[in-house]
């Protein structure tokens, strides 16, 4: 026992004195950044902006939490450099504290960067041990710095939460997807699926989601609007709930609003006809009528049938539009059709022989929608 203690003492003293572990970096020595924005500068260099909490000027200790002057607590620094890592080094030098990405809650790329090929930046970030995979991944229509700036001014006391809301809002709107750095990276690596990310726009001092940024390999090639986004979520079974307005089948110039969710996963079946994939989709949305104008009677079966038919038509329409876009316009398999098709084969070699990935752009679709209208909200007749 004495020997063990003695040994431990020697080791401890030795370690402390010889290896310099007492210089370990505590939380005081780091600069935690909340969001990272990446743009191109005018000199065709990378412009990396970081958003941080401004701890240095927090003079009002003791009585914090007033919340009125919170927005001034965030600062944005931008530097230009060749790569993200060298930009961070410059920032380390400039801030005289080590920039730490472990609490970074959002990555914002400008559309310009995304369209020029995003892969080098992504792999640099992925190799970073600090960055979380759950960090939000956004593509902004304008410059990324603007997005960070706008978020700083939003008055939210924790801006990381705002970034969170930006993407999780798709849970109840269906107007975008949940895209984190991890999911983006894994679909970038995945040969069965093309990556896509949230597309945000800064308009009139407001940041908003406006659909999905579509990538082919690592290059952004276009955007999908919010209706396409609903279709995308339906195909990938990721739709939580969304709201659509369709033309009322009972009265012209009237709209009916429905809340949709999927009651069953979408069935996708494949066929090869004349060396072109023939893909049949069966969608099973389930709807609640939120508002329907005057003439809808939920107790009337005919009315329900009509409403269901109208919903079917509507969804089929937006779905076809979406499918047309991803196959013909963007030729990017963001819905992961090839992955689904591959599961019909026993070995990968067999699947490779079909050359599905090349033929994807030729594919044509058949969409069946089986809507069920479950209830109106509070009143059966309106």
């Amino acid at each position, binding site marked *: 026992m004495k020997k063990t203690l003695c040994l431990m003492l*020697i080791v401890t003293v030795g370690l402390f004195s010889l290896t310099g572990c007492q210089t370990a970096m*505590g939380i005081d020595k780091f600069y*935690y950044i909340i969001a990272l924005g990446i743009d191109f500068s005018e000199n065709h260099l990378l412009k990396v902006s970081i958003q941080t909490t401004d701890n240095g000027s927090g003079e009002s200790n003791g009585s914090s939490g007033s919340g009125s002057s919170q927005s001034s607590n965030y600062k944005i620094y931008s530097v230009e450099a060749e790569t993200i890592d060298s930009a961070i080094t410059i920032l380390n030098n400039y801030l005289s504290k080590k920039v730490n990405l472990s609490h970074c*809650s959002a990555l914002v790329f400008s559309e310009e960067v995304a369209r020029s090929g995003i892969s080098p930046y992504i792999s640099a970030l992925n190799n970073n041990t600090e960055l979380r995979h759950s960090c939000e991944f956004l593509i902004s229509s304008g410059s990324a710095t603007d997005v960070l700036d706008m978020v700083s001014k939003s008055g939210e006391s924790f801006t990381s939460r705002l970034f969170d809301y930006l993407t999780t809002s798709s849970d109840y709107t269906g107007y975008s997807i949940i895209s984190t750095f991890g999911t983006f990276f894994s679909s970038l690596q995945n040969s069965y699926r093309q990556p896509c990310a949230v597309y945000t726009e800064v308009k009139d001092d407001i940041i908003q989601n406006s659909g999905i940024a579509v990538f082919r390999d690592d290059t952004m090639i276009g955007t999908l609007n919010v209706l396409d986004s609903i279709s995308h979520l339906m195909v990938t079974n990721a739709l939580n709930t969304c709201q659509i307005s369709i033309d009322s089948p009972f009265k012209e110039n009237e709209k009916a609003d429905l809340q949709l969710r999927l009651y069953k996963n979408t069935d996708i079946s494949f066929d090869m006809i004349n060396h072109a994939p023939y893909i049949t989709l069966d969608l099973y949305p389930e709807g609640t009528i939120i508002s329907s104008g005057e003439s809808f009677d939920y107790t009337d079966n005919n009315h329900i049938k009509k409403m269901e038919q109208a919903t079917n038509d509507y969804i089929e329409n937006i779905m076809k539009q979406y499918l047309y876009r991803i196959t013909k316009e963007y030729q990017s398999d963001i819905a992961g059709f090839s992955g689904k098709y591959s599961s019909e084969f026993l070995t990968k070699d067999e699947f490779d022989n079909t050359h599905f990935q090349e033929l994807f752009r030729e594919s044509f679709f058949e969409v069946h929608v089986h809507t069920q209208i479950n209830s109106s909200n509070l009143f059966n007749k309106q």
Partner: protein
Amino acid sequence: MIKEFFHKIFSYTDSEKYEFILSNTNNNIPKEEYEKKDTTTVYPTLSVNLEYIKTKYNLLINTDIKTREFVLPIKSKNFSACLLYIDGMVSENAINEFILQPLLLRNSITMQENSNTTAITKNISVKRVRKFNLEDFIYNSLIPQNSITKETRFSQIVSNVNSGFCALIVDTLPVVFCIETKGFKGRSVTEPITESVIKGSHEGFVENIRTNTSMIRKIINNEKLIIEEVSVGKISQTKVAICYMKDITNDDLVAEAKYRINHLDIDFLLSSGQLEQFIKDNANMAFPQMISTERPDRTCHYLLSGRVAVLVNGSPFSIILPAVLIDLLTSAEDANLNYHYANFLRFIRALALFFALTLPGMYIAITTYHHELIPSELLSAIITAREAIPFPIIFEILIMELSFELIQEASIRVSSSFSTTVGIIGALILGEAAVSANIVSPILIIIVAFTGISGFAITDNTLRFAIRMFRFMYIVLGYAAGFLGITLGFYIHFLLLANTSSFGVPYFAPYIPFSNITENNNFHMKPVWKRERRSQFLNTKKPEMENSISMKWRKNGQ
């Protein structure tokens, strides 16, 4: 010199380790033997009766059972007689004055030659020879006591004696007089200070060993409880009582306990804490290897579940052996509570153990190495709180832990009239002022306070000391290498504890080594009607504690 030093440290020497392992052999007493009812009646011969009682009470080893043999002179005849009682449970005055005195003193009644009434009629003296009845004579004339019964069955006698009666056995009589002589002496029994409970007995041990043994006897009320007495210490000759249940406790365990206590070559022994250190298996291990309790009810609970209790004269604590880690987390209250609450409380205590041991270490590890583990919002709160603090976290935490230890020590040592002052100084000056003076951050105060509270939730005193000490080790390790250091600490701690055993029982029993967990009393308490078996690791002679259907009233309707 240096060479020698390194040789000492890095060379391997075979340590001579004393190893005792509680055997696993089956030594159960058959069930029928327990259920056998003692129907023996009192024999008319005193010597036979005495012989019977001697075996029944194991008089050769049981020290607090006293017999007083004397001669009862009645009517010029001498009857040998004997008193049987338990020392400590009876009032000596009552026995001396109201039993022995009337029996032994040659008074007018006893000296009367055959209490014959002589009637003289017409000069003829007619002797009415009444048949002399010794039994009635003693009952009616000799014992001036209000509560006295005549018993013929030994089972009844024994149970009376166990509850503080004094038995008078007289030769030639097939009857035993049970005379009530209950009484205690010594300091009045008070509430236990260190182990207070809400729902349970409020009796605590006192300094007098006899009073303590009588308290145990009073609760257990069974002749199979053996209280052996030995003297320890060449000068002090301190009385040490070893208590166990003869038909439950493993013989090896008793033998080992006796062996260790008897083989102490010391000058004096003053307290049970001292004895505990003398008879520990692993003397260098800081964790307690025996339970030390000042509650008679808890002691009896352990005795009845097959352990050995050791009492030391002059010390209001009993030592229970063997003890395993989970015993140190149980409280006297657990058995009295509904098992849901008891389990909840045990879980809380286990958490408390973990936090008390590692929380400051974890805090320093996380803030120095693993900051990504802290939620972002909390992190910014910590950073904001620490803005004006000039010290590194390690220094901050050491200051606070040290001052907390100081407060704790001071408030125990100081007389109770000062302890409020200590509390105020501690809470206000060290807590409040240190924060406003920007010496420590408020977050750290929360950590230290939480750790302190967790420490107080641990029931065992000795364990609490060990935890307080090792906490500093974990702080240093956490600072040295974050979770790697803390893991190293855990691992070494585990190795040492796994190698430890308390009187042959592994410290982590019944979990490690894994031995039929269902047959043991686990950390998780079963409902009271399912505690059917005594702990398997104690290897008792009577594994069953209650019938498989203990609540027979439920089955009556069927």
